[in-house]
């Protein structure tokens, strides 16, 4: 018993060995983890000594499944990666297919996609930032912005018929043109959302309690962040202005003017501010895209998909009435069209960072190998380093400010 610290107020039974630290299971189903993550924390008092993450609780073998599925059937898998911004994943996957197949899309389709992707980014960041609020004790912001996420979901619903797992779009464009209601809702969003975001910022940005909880929690230097493979808002909060939309533009992002907000310390507060700023930028991109689409005149203003009958599903009313359309529909859905041989990597800027699709096709009906580069999975490794020496309550905020999405993490 000589090497064990003797407490004056605790009497241990004779012969017992005192453990100096506490092991705490944070998760897998802890309400504060917002997903199925397990963290085995080793605590000294309330300070974290080490954190071991266990992931894979909702692993669904997407990469294996993708090897048996034709291109369109993989879109539904991408929905379930980052389900807070599934349209980005859908578009990313369709863009990958288009690159493989050599399909080029009309400008109007690109701009429509940009609108949807930026809406998705807003809803993704909105959830993340308001959850940071919830985890630091401020529920109001979360409830307040929820109705505008709802409005975004209503816009999705108008465009594709579903809300969360959207399965939106086709290779070459969209399944149908945006309806008048969709445009109305978008206009409503553009009109009302700035005031809401401003109010949201007023609630948080200079709130003393909030700042004291977040500043200095889970910081990371730019160098470490790059070494850990951070991308997206988390990397930008550390001060690196890397954004796939700018560095490898896709879907005509080069036509838009926007800034890449960066932070400096990479702590929770910077991540929060970067996400807020990105929402403003996304809003400005949506407005620009809206204006650009309004400028199309005549026949051009009706285009919503590229002319690629080999990959673009024929119209439903034709499928029900015409033989050829029915055959093509069947062939496309069942993947009876061989896709070209090739190997490509296509990145898009997802809600959490660089979402990449590494596709190898051997010329069959399905990909030979498909790998998803999931930003969450890569940067979650840094969690231990981010939380080491911090308080337990900081660990919760660090987790929510990283925006970990279990679906994306576990694939």
């Amino acid at each position: 018993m000589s090497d064990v610290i003797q407490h004056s107020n605790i009497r241990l039974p004779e012969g017992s060995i005192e453990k100096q630290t506490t092991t705490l299971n944070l998760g897998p189903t802890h309400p504060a983890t917002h997903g199925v993550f397990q963290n085995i924390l080793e605590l000294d008092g309330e300070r974290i000594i080490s954190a071991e993450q266990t992931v894979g609780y909702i692993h669904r073998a997407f990469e294996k499944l993708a090897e048996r599925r034709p291109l369109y059937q993989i879109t539904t898998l991408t929905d379930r990666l980052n389900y807070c911004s599934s349209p980005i994943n859908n578009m990313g996957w369709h863009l990958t297919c288009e690159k493989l197949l050599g399909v080029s899309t009309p400008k109007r389709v690109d701009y429509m996609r940009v609108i949807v992707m930026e809406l998705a980014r807003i809803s993704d960041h909105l959830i993340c930032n308001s959850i940071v609020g919830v985890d630091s004790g401020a529920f109001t912001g979360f409830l307040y912005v929820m109705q505008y996420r709802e409005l975004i979901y209503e816009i999705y619903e108008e465009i594709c018929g579903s809300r969360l797992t959207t399965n939106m779009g086709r290779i070459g464009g969209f399944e149908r043109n945006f309806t008048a209601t969709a445009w109305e809702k978008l206009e409503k969003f553009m009109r009302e959302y700035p005031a809401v975001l401003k109010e949201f910022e007023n609630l948080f940005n200079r709130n003393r309690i909030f700042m004291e909880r977040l500043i200095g929690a889970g910081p990371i230097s730019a160098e470490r962040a790059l070494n850990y493979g951070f991308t997206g808002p988390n990397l930008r909060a550390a001060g690196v202005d890397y954004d796939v939309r700018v560095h490898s533009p896709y879907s005509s992002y080069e036509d838009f003017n926007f800034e890449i907000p960066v932070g400096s310390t990479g702590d929770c507060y910077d991540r929060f501010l970067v996400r807020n700023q990105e929402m403003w930028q996304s809003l400005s991109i949506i407005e620009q895209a809206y204006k650009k689409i309004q400028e199309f005149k005549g026949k051009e203003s009706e285009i919503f998909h590229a002319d690629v009958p080999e990959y673009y599903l024929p119209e439903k009313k034709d499928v029900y009435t015409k033989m050829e359309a029915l055959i093509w529909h069947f062939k496309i859905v069942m993947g009876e069209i061989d896709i070209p041989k090739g190997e490509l990597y296509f990145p898009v800027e997802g809600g959490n960072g660089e979402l990449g699709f590494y596709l190898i096709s051997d010329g069959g009906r399905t990909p030979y190998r498909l790998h998803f580069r999931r930003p969450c999975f890569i940067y979650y490794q840094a969690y231990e380093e981010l939380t080491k020496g911090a308080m337990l309550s900081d660990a919760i905020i660090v987790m929510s400010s990283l925006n970990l999405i279990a679906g994306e993490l576990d694939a």
Partner: protein
Amino acid sequence: MALTYEHIKQRLVEKFGEQVTGFNEPYGMLTFEAPKELNLKVLQFLYDDATLQFRFLTDLQAVHYPDDAGRELAVVYHLHNLTDNVRLRFKIFTDITRPDVYSATALYASANWMERETYDFFGVNFVGHPNLKRVLNVDEMDYFPMRKEFPLEDQTRIDKDDEMFGRGGSIQ
């Protein structure tokens, strides 16, 4: 001066001579391969060289080619030079019976889980990895599920005639 693929190729050949092979540019991304013993040397060279500076590991995964004897498993690195904004793809091939590959964790902290995932699904044994165990699958699993010998559907099914759907065997 912008970094060109020509320059990268030239620097690599200067350094490694004929050991770096298979240069091509599928869909516009420079791709090459090297012997698996050289993987760390090549990565380190790409990282350190003053003009190359590929310091961001975008992605790391494996591919299984069961018919390519002696080169069944490919480990693919996607690297990114963020200053010049150039990407490249680097591959090594290994024998499936002895899938030992040096781990890149010392160079990239991000390689840790990516290598664990690659081990988990393909059984690539990363030598020098600090914690090489399964990451997404259960620890008790005793096979590597992404290898091509594990088909997705039950091959004994008789209620579905694959011939009717224009496909023959299980894996194509």
